[in-house]
């Protein structure tokens, strides 16, 4: 008698896999779940190529991050990933561990260029852009130079000089802060429009009526927006921006904390300094966001696969077997 197992892998099942991945011997290649702007689909009809994932430096962390680059539309997209413990996907007739959900959203390339401009700016001289945007670790950064209207964009953050028809740039902190201030106010407006709860303490919507949300102080909005934008700029610039915005220091002890992390965002600071303010939701948030320890064997194994997956993705190794735990 054929059992469930055998039939479950029967030919008709394999046939219905058309829209999924091939799972020849039961094991599937890693499937990535993405949300991508619709217009890329329309654009894709007319382009044969030019849409690619590349690794560029994350201007906040200084480490590598994945971006989507569209040569055709000349656009850059940031990739954020929803990652919460204890999720997986069923995708058609397959299971995909991790339950990751990737978001591609258009991104202002200036944030990435700033990273290089600031670095070059330390030398204090005017330089041509192609000398500034150079990176041995992330050579794909030169693609940024192909983006449209760079000159116009650069005016927001640099002083420029033109000699012999060639443009030379120098990072300007003053201009940059002004530009970022605009981003902050733009973000404040969006936070309000989207009813984002920027209050310091309560995070759970259940305890929050819309009245309370609307009573959030302007300062809270600015601080929150500053925090968000700080995720896209180097830490030093974030501190300068905070001063520039005249953000008062929070009631929680903020000044000159010993750890870098303490400075970056108001909220975790409070949490660390005063555990009594750590409500359950906070705890949960922290817990779910932290990277895993190696303690739980099985889990660690899978997570490793997830983190290592750049190999699979970039094809260094072809991971054939998802080991059974």
């Amino acid at each position: 008698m054929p059992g469930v197992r055998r039939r479950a892998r029967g030919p008709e099942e394999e046939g219905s896999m058309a829209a999924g991945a091939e799972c020849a011997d039961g094991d599937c290649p890693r499937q990535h779940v993405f949300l991508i702007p619709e217009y890329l689909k329309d654009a894709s009809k007319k382009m044969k190529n030019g849409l690619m994932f590349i690794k560029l430096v994350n201007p906040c962390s200084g480490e590598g991050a994945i971006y989507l680059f569209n040569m055709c539309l000349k656009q850059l997209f940031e990739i954020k990933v929803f990652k919460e413990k204890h999720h997986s996907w069923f995708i058609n007739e397959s299971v995909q561990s991790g339950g990751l959900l990737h978001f591609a959203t258009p991104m202002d390339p200036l944030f990435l260029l700033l990273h290089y401009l600031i670095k070059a700016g330390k030398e204090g001289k005017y330089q041509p852009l192609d000398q500034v945007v150079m990176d041995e670790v992330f050579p794909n950064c030169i693609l940024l130079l192909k983006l449209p209207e760079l000159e116009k964009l650069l005016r927001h953050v640099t002083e420029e000089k033109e000699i012999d028809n060639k443009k030379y740039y120098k990072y300007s902190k003053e201009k940059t802060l002004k530009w970022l201030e605009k981003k902050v106010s733009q973000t404040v407006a969006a936070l309000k429009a989207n009813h984002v709860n920027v209050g310091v303490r309560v995070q759970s919507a259940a305890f929050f009526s819309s009245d309370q949300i609307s009573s959030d102080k302007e300062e809270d909005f600015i601080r929150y927006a500053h925090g968000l934008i700080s995720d896209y700029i180097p830490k030093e610039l974030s501190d300068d921006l905070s001063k520039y915005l005249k953000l008062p220091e929070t009631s929680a002890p903020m000044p000159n904390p010993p750890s870098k992390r303490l400075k970056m965002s108001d909220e975790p600071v409070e949490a660390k300094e005063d555990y009594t303010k750590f409500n359950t939701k906070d705890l949960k948030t922290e817990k779910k966001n932290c990277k895993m320890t190696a303690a739980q064997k099985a889990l660690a194994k899978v997570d490793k696969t997830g983190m290592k997956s750049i190999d699979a993705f970039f094809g260094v190794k072809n991971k054939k077997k998802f080991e059974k735990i």
Partner: protein
Amino acid sequence: MDLSELEKDNTGRSRLSSPVPAVCREEPCVLGVDEAGRGPVLGPMVYAICYCPESRLADLEALKVADSKTLSESERDRLFAKMEEDQDLVGWALDVLSPNLISTSMLGRVKYNLNSLSHDTATGLIQYALDQGVKVTQVFVDTVGLPEMYQKRLQQRFPEITVMVKAKADALYPVVSAASICAKVARDQAVKSWQFVEKLQDLDADYGSGYPNDPKTKAWLRRHVEPVFGFPQLVRFSWRTAQAILEKEAEGVTWEDSATEEQEGHRRITSYFQSEGPRARAPHRYFQERGLESATAL
């Protein structure tokens, strides 16, 4: 027995009952409670009540009802048919608790153990008889767990009724024997005519008694384990036998309330602050609250 209601949807709980004999609304009645299919790793657990007027107990005894376990399947079927003939004398009702209901109850975030599930079901059935207008004066129950505790609970719940909870009540009281027959007949029929929720057309039904120590049952479970889903919903996932097979032969699955997770919870929180290098800047709270981070790999 008409189990068509159950067959329509066997993922939850369904109740079946006979019409209430008119005499049971007028005369004081004895009511027996028993269960079938408590132990098996497969199929539903059935709770049954059977009741008749005190004055007619002799008629019930005359049917020669006995503990269902001492009867063959055909004898049980015959006795159940006889009770059906005596519709003006004996009434019954039963609750079929699907294996899925049992699994999800026992494996719930808040564990709902089989004893509590049993007690609550028995209570529900007695209440159902009362709601139907049956003049219940005495209740006899085959015990689940400690009889004293169970009796106390039931007695508190039904102060107007004399409750007697006993081990082996199904052998001692004909009305409990009758209930045990109803339960067993329903359980056997439910297993035999089990409508798989899953689309498994030619699944073999050679699962033996369904008891975990039956080699046939074990072999069936091993044969039908599916690496991702485990078993069809006919199987009680909460049974150790089923879990042992899953641990060995199916893919690992972890839930946020999995035991190992809870132990580790605290360590993780502290590790966030301590063990990550100084470079690790936590994302803004907006992103943390939404489980979002920059993708560093795909």
